[in-house]
């Protein structure tokens, strides 16, 4: 039995409306780092929220350690797509709020020292008393990372955590996240729209075919030694092959999507929906 399992999951937001996710099957083993790549609007956030317990599947089941997911849990830490820091709290207060909930029995001093450790880990100690609006996008995202990790979740779920950052900051934070994940071998699920990020960080990459009725595509295994080195990776033939395969696959679904948009109405028999289901 896998650590996290999604069996035939369907999700509709509006009753009787179109399915956003359709027949999703996914299983993640303990300690694995899995990346899901997909276009914007394909249903990635929806998928993440089904796993972290903010949403319930319309049909099918989501199992975490063999138990159906009911609501959120401290075992599954979440890094949201848009940071979601509370703007009226300082960096320290934002992290402290999470830590307090995760470790209700610890004393105030212990909690504060945990907060200090994690804020230090994301290199924000100088900004610990600042409020989110005084921070850059990269710094905010670091706070969000610290907040999620300080709760010491067994599984980290990240929804495009680095999407809004510049390339340099992005690289930095990728390494920080990998570091933490490697340290106590937690399970990680990363949602991203950047194939290179997926390849650099994950053990497996699974494309999400664009919705409505989004389904998961075939998985791509990344057999690269860790720790990985970005410059070395570029010369690795197996890396090149995987990267090309994934990009080709994504371009194909991209073209399909375009074709779908361009399909003239008088040719309904070309509607690609029917063969989307077969892939």
């Amino acid at each position, binding site marked *: 039995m896998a650590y996290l399992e999604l069996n035939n999951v369907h999700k509709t937001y509006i009753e009787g409306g179109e399915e956003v996710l359709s027949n999703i099957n996914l299983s993640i083993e303990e300690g694995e780092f899995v990346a899901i790549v997909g276009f914007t609007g394909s249903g990635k956030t929806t998928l993440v929220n089904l796993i972290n317990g903010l949403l319930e599947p319309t049909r099918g089941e989501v199992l975490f350690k063999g138990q159906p997911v009911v609501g959120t849990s401290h075992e599954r830490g979440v890094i949201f797509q848009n940071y*979601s820091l*509370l703007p009226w709290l300082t960096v320290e207060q934002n992290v402290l709020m999470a830590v307090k909930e995760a470790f209700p029995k610890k004393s105030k001093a212990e909690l504060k020292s945990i907060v200090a450790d994690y804020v230090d880990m994301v290199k924000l100690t100088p900004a610990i008393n600042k409020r989110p609006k005084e921070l850059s996008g990269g710094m905010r995202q670091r706070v969000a990372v610290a907040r999620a990790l300080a*709760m010491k979740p067994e599984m980290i779920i990240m929804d495009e955590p680095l999407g809004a950052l510049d390339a340099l900051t992005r690289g930095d934070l990728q390494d920080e996240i990998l570091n933490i994940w490697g340290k106590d071998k937690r399970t990680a699920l990363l949602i991203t729209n950047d194939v290179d990020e997926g390849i650099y960080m994950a053990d497996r990459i699974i494309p999400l075919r664009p919705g409505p009725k989004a389904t998961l595509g075939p998985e791509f295994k990344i057999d690269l030694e860790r720790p990985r080195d970005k410059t070395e990776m570029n010369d690795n033939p197996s890396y090149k092959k995987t990267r090309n395969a994934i990009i080709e696959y994504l371009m194909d679904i991209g073209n399909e999507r375009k074709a779908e948009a361009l399909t003239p109405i008088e040719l309904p028999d070309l509607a690609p929906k029917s063969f989307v289901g077969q892939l």
Partner: protein
Amino acid sequence: MKQSITLGKVSKFMGLGFLSTLKNLFTGKLSKEDFRAFLRKTIVPIASILLFLGIWHMGAKALYNVEADFKINKALEERGQAAADEEAACIASGDSTCQPNSLPSPAQVWGSFKSLLRDHGIISADKAAFKEKTAALNAKRVAKGEEPIVYTGRPSFVDQIIRSLKTVFAGFLLALFIAVPLGIFIGLSPTLKAAFNWFIQIFKPVSPVVWYLLVFMIVKTLLIDSSEDSSFTISFISVGLCSMWATLVNTAMGVSSVDKDYINVAKVLKLGTFQKIFKVILPSSLPLIFTGLKITLSVAWMVLIAIELLAQSPGLGLFVWEEFQNGANDSNAKIIVAMFVIGIIGFLLDRLMLFIQNSVSFVKTDAI
């Protein structure tokens, strides 16, 4: 140096940014780019005030002439040429018994303002003397368990302003303590919202006069045994009930429209209800709550005048009404003084709220 920075900050905070521009002018720190801003922020308002006073003065003069001509003509028609000449002479002499009574000029209003202050000086001196005179006697009376003798003389203009402020603050606090908690509950629960919606929609537009009458009916019965003057109680409750609706509606709206992201954070962290309300929902609705409170305070101040008048509760409202009834030759000027005092205090109250809002809330709101 440090102090000047603080002044700039504080005045900007209170929406009185022009103060720092004015200060820069005197300290000679004004740069050329600032000059246009200075013109706009200082010279333009001053010019418009002067223009306003000018128009007012001319208007008052024109009205005065209309009234004077009417008086002279009336004397001519009723009592002949001699009486008319006498009337004209009397008016020209400035004798207060025959002055035309119309819109007072700015100068007359300023004169009344000074005379009201003088009057206040006299009354306070009177009060102090009374206190001194009765100090020994009152100490004895208190020792014997009797009520001390209190000053029962006429209140001064300043006393009335203070009394009005007390009424409005009591009313405002009542509104705050009813509307904010109720608004939170309504915002949190769709059921309560459905239950209260008709209630809010019906009572929100009810006029201050009707609120006063309603409160009067109830309080009069409740305090039937008490010999104390209930006008203060009645007026502050009416003010509170009249003005609380904006806060109620805004609080409910703020609480029910908290950003979905923050709610998701609360869920993922598994915050308890108490934490969720106080750490997430309330801070996020604070700007809207304050917008409501600001409206409440200005409505409270506005309806206060009418309610004091109805309740015969001492204060600016009663002052205006009594002066109007009084019809003395400086009554009109006193009414205009009261109008300005009411307006200026209303403005200051608004700025005070803005100051409090900016010091407790994470979003800074600019003055209009």
